[in-house]
């Protein structure tokens, strides 16, 4: 359709011509020059507009990426002189496949991701819907839900550590009448995944809610009016009008949250009060990036850590593709 507009452009210019200044001997050439410029503008502007991103990425993103791929084929550790020159080919990746700790980290990551992402996005959708109402103190409430994102990570960590402390924590104190002995929130996978998910959900829900809210506010009000006239309940309006209208934004948050879940680092790191990147005494909640950090910073195994990073990247690509295709499939079935 757009192509016809492009092809139709010259005639459009003709339509405008009566308003232009009286024809002069030079107008003919100016016409051609202008229409060529016009075509250049239509064809070339998009590339110009997206260029800044690729320029910057080319400089700051590409080199580190390639260099890290190179490092992943060595046995480099700064604590062992000369090790950067020892090439091991794909051995690091082979070792990764047999590394129980890596698979454990992957399971933790996916588990925490599932427990935290789903509820978080539904919660955010609900909160955005509530914030969409005409409310008194609207600004205060809208900013209020963003406070977790504003709160410094250091502060949040200390508070949640207090809440989830084993012997004198707030949560265990509240749960006292319901359990035999205080829950050690860091000792089991289930408990630690729950705790970490609570931290993640607390941190990111307001953020996603605001994104949904911005999208919801672009939905024309008359759609709701006519639906209300047709007798649709508010719930029905939500599902039939709001959600489909902001679908691109929902897809966006799903993909971004998935990537965020796969790359989760801050919350599991801070939940372990020993700060040793182990994700719990028995790696109960060590995510892949936490494992990467451990290999990189604590153990000084640069080559192996680079391999973990690349493995994570490839896994992320696969999962996002699957996500995206599923979203397309769902949209297809709706049409």
């Amino acid at each position: 359709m757009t192509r016809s507009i492009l092809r139709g452009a010259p005639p459009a210019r003709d339509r405008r011509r009566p308003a232009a200044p009286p024809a002069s001997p030079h107008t003919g050439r100016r016409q051609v020059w202008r229409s060529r410029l016009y075509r250049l503008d239509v064809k070339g502007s998009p590339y110009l507009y997206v260029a800044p991103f690729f320029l910057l990425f080319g400089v700051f993103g590409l080199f580190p990426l390639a260099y890290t791929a190179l490092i992943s084929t060595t046995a480099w550790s700064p604590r062992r002189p000369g090790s950067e020159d020892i090439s091991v080919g794909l051995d690091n990746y082979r070792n990764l496949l047999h590394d129980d700790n890596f698979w454990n980290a992957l399971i933790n990551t996916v588990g925490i991701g599932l427990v935290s992402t789903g509820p978080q996005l539904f919660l955010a959708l609900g909160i955005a819907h509530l914030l969409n109402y005409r409310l008194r103190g609207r600004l205060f409430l809208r900013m209020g839900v963003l406070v977790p994102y504003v709160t410094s990570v250091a502060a949040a960590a200390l508070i949640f550590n207090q809440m989830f402390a084993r012997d004198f924590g707030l949560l265990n104190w509240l749960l006292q009448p319901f359990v035999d002995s205080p829950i050690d929130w860091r000792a089991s996978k289930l408990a630690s995944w729950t705790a970490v998910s609570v931290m993640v959900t607390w941190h990111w829900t307001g953020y996603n809610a605001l994104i949904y809210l911005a999208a919801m506010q672009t939905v024309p009000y008359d759609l709701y009016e006519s639906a209300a006239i047709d007798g649709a309940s508010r719930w029905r309006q939500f599902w039939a009008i709001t959600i489909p209208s902001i679908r691109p934004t929902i897809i966006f948050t799903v993909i971004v949250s998935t990537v965020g879940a796969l790359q989760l680092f801050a919350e599991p790191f801070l939940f372990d009060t020993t700060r040793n990147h182990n994700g719990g005494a028995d790696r109960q909640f060590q995510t892949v990036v936490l494992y990467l950090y451990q290999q990189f910073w604590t153990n000084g195994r640069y080559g192996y850590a680079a391999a973990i990073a690349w493995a994570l990247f490839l896994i992320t690509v696969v999962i996002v593709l699957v996500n995206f295709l599923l979203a397309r499939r769902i949209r297809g079935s709706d049409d």
Partner: protein
Amino acid sequence: MTRGGRWVYVALVGIVVVSAFPLYWSVVVSSKDTSAIGSYPPPLVPGGNLWDNLSAAFEQGNFGVALTNSLLVAGTITVSVVLTSTLAGFAFAKLPFRGRGALFGLVVATMLVPTQLAIIPLYVMITQWFGWANDLRGVIVPALVTAFGVFFMRQFLSSAMPTELIEAGRVDGATTWRIYWNVVLPVARPGAAVLGLLTFITYWNDLFWPLILLNTENPTVQVAIANTASGIEVDYSLVLAGTVIATFPMLIVFLLLGRQIIGGIMQGAVKG
């Protein structure tokens, strides 16, 4: 939109209380002393040391410089990200061009790269090739355009921007830039405002990269907080006082500009 009923308020206020509680608690602890963080039952009422701890943290963390630096860093990045993202997002969402799908896929793909992957080579690049060790430029420049921003604006515009308006502009013979300026920007404003707000907060709170590039002579607020956390024996009330200093400027920005940013969203809504 319809008026919110009583239960809407109750739910939202409850959510705000849960959201803001940790911030309140950091004020409580920073108004006491370091033993407060370990005491049981945990303190819930502020003590009297707030001013002392705030001034001590302010000095130790070099917060005067830190706040200015963070403002500069977050502010510059936000302006740049919003401008470039709206432009690129518009192109990807509404302008047809060859390779659009593939290039957009590439943008999304760059988001999938774990940032921690590139730390050493990036550090080498920034400090040796550009000579920006301990320089704010090393923090700002790599973040001037983000895939997140481009992706976000593209999604926002693809649903919020009616294609008919753009076509009408074309029919009138407007250049792409004029269409962008007169037609797209007003529609993009609510999305751009949210993107700006979130970007500002993200880079205000950015910890990891500034921590390695900058030192305490030229810190951002997160580096300054790390400074107050130095020592085997951490004075938690001081650290949390530092986080209070780091957080409250943002809340003030909310109050002052919030109405511009969020309150004005209704005007951007497209009618019919």
